[in-house]
């Protein structure tokens, strides 16, 4: 893999990690409200997969969406401002943590009704098929979303109409606090896709280059008009489901075991070993990212709350608008 790309993948994972840690701090300080779901531990999936896409390809994701947004190229400041409910947020403070979007980057948002975004993503893929523009849609969701009806309705449509979509299941082994074995009869989630005649594979979601390679293959398949592709990325969230989660349902030893597979630590060691950068360069990069995140938090907290006169804006499209 190209050295610059490897550095980019590493940097984005570090950026997401530090971003999420800052979010936890701001949440504790009541600057971020509502529910906050951190992506820590799962960074390799979004970074590996999204970097294998074209800039104009769509991304649609679930409520644990900060990582996908940053990997799609959204700037940290306006994303942090959105989480803090500020006017400068990417959605003007209307969406919050679970609904981060920037249409100019083809990041169509996080969605917080489990499974509900799969049909919408399938529709975006339909628009590409209709326009014959050669673009693809990628839809991320969790393992527990594969149990709900809308998952199956989307699978059926995508396969039946051979739509250009890649489904990426982030299998972190828990649906909130319930282990996968107690949630779903078929724990090899990729088998559910195979029931619809869809090609797919289970991959190591803790390895960013594995994710990049898998997505390259999957997106190429979809782009060629061969229909949808399914990736089941095995992963683990290092933090609770949300900030409100005391994690009583899982063994500390299990968490520690997975932390040994930390996608960032492993990749950092690999890139130093393969002389992509030195340890000193990696440390400098970490510091640079930390400073960027601090600046983003400052930008967010210095930003005004939405003007109260805008409350009713954007319920409907203004005349002549789109």
């Amino acid at each position: 893999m190209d050295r610059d790309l490897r550095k980019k993948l590493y940097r984005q994972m570090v950026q997401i990690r530090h971003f999420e840690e800052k979010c936890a701090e701001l949440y504790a300080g009541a600057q971020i409200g509502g529910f906050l779901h951190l992506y820590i531990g799962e960074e390799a999936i979004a970074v590996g997969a999204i970097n294998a896409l074209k800039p104009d390809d769509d991304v649609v994701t679930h409520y644990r969406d900060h990582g996908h947004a940053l990997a799609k190229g959204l700037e940290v400041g306006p994303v942090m401002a959105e989480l803090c409910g500020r006017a400068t947020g990417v959605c003007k403070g209307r969406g919050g943590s679970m609904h981060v979007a920037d249409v100019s980057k083809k990041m169509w948002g996080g969605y917080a009704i489990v499974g509900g975004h799969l049909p919408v993503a399938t529709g975006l893929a339909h628009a590409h098929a209709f326009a014959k523009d050669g673009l693809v849609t990628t839809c991320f969701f969790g393992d527990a979303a594969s149990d709900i009806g809308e998952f199956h309705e989307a699978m059926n449509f995508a396969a039946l109409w051979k739509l250009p979509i890649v489904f990426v299941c982030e299998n972190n082994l828990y649906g909130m606090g319930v282990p996968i074995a107690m949630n779903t009869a078929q724990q090899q989630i990729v088998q559910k896709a195979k029931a619809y005649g869809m090609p797919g594979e289970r991959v190591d979601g803790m390895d960013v280059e594995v994710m990049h390679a898998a997505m390259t293959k999957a997106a190429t398949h979809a782009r060629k008009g061969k229909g949808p592709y399914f990736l089941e990325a095995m992963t683990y969230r290092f933090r609770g489901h949300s900030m409100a989660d005391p994690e009583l349902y899982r063994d500390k030893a299990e968490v520690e075991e997975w932390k040994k597979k930390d996608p960032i630590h492993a990749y950092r060691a690999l890139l130093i070993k393969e002389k992509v950068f030195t340890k000193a360069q990696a440390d400098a990069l970490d510091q640079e990212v930390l400073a960027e995140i601090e600046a983003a938090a400052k930008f967010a907290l210095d930003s005004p709350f939405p003007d109260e006169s805008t409350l009713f804006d954007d319920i409907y499209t203004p005349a002549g608008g789109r």
Partner: protein
Amino acid sequence: MPVITYREALRQAIQEEMRADPKVWILGQNIAAYGGTYAVTKGLFEEFGPERVRDAPIEEAGIVGLATGSAMGGTRPIAEIMSINFTLVAIDQIVNHAAKMRYMFGGQWSAPMVIRTSSGYGMLAATHSQTFENWYAYVPGLRVVMPATPYDAKGMLKAAIRDPDPVMFIEHSNLYGQKGEVPDGDYVVPLDQADVKREGADVTLVCWSSMVKPCLQAAETLAGDGVAAEVIDMRALRPLDTATVIASVKKTSRCVVVEEGWRSMGVGAEIAARVSEEAFDWLDAPVGRVAGKEVPMPYAKNLEKLCIPNEQDILAAVRSIL
């Protein structure tokens, strides 16, 4: 002016809009070669082909979600859901997704789509004979219309297809065969204005969809008694054109609201409340209500007939407040 059926008026609207805009397409169950459950789409498949007149599987959430995403991606979908009872299967997509697309992401995009569906009854029993326009009219972000005449059906459907936001376009199974004057060629009827279907100075009858006809019949009977009833067809339920109703009540000082559906928690209650709020000083009697019986609809013809308001019910309500 040509006299055609409500069904033919709808078909003309779709056909003309599809000819004018190559991005308009229609999906739904049995709409292609079959020609539509209520034969609205008959002949469209032959003219526009399988990419633009597309049979969909029996998965209403999938249909609405796919239409929403495709609309976000640049097409102009018309999603036909055979019966409003079946829209309940898609209500997550309608309420949590289509209706939220613009506001929740800060006005970044719209979902220009029409959900065409049908209300009605006819010895179909409890799950196939319900009215749910109030459920959708409750939701900011949706437009909800229910045309009663062939003229309004064509003009409002054309307006709905061109509208930049999601429109719930609710037809009625008892109206498809009704005839009326409809101009050839292009015209639109606004999606936010009630229509005075008959003028009168003594009492205001407020109705929509299937109830317009019995109200007009009642007005004719009342005219024989020397009572001039004004009949207002709401046509649009969100936004609700209260101004037309209030102006009428200020003239007549008496008002009866007539609806097919259950009396409690419905659109009729909302209209009655607004009349009380905005025209209290002009009222000479409490606002009258005529509504369906609050039972799950029975199958037997005689029992079903008891549930649906008729001309006699309307006359009784009017006479009780004269």
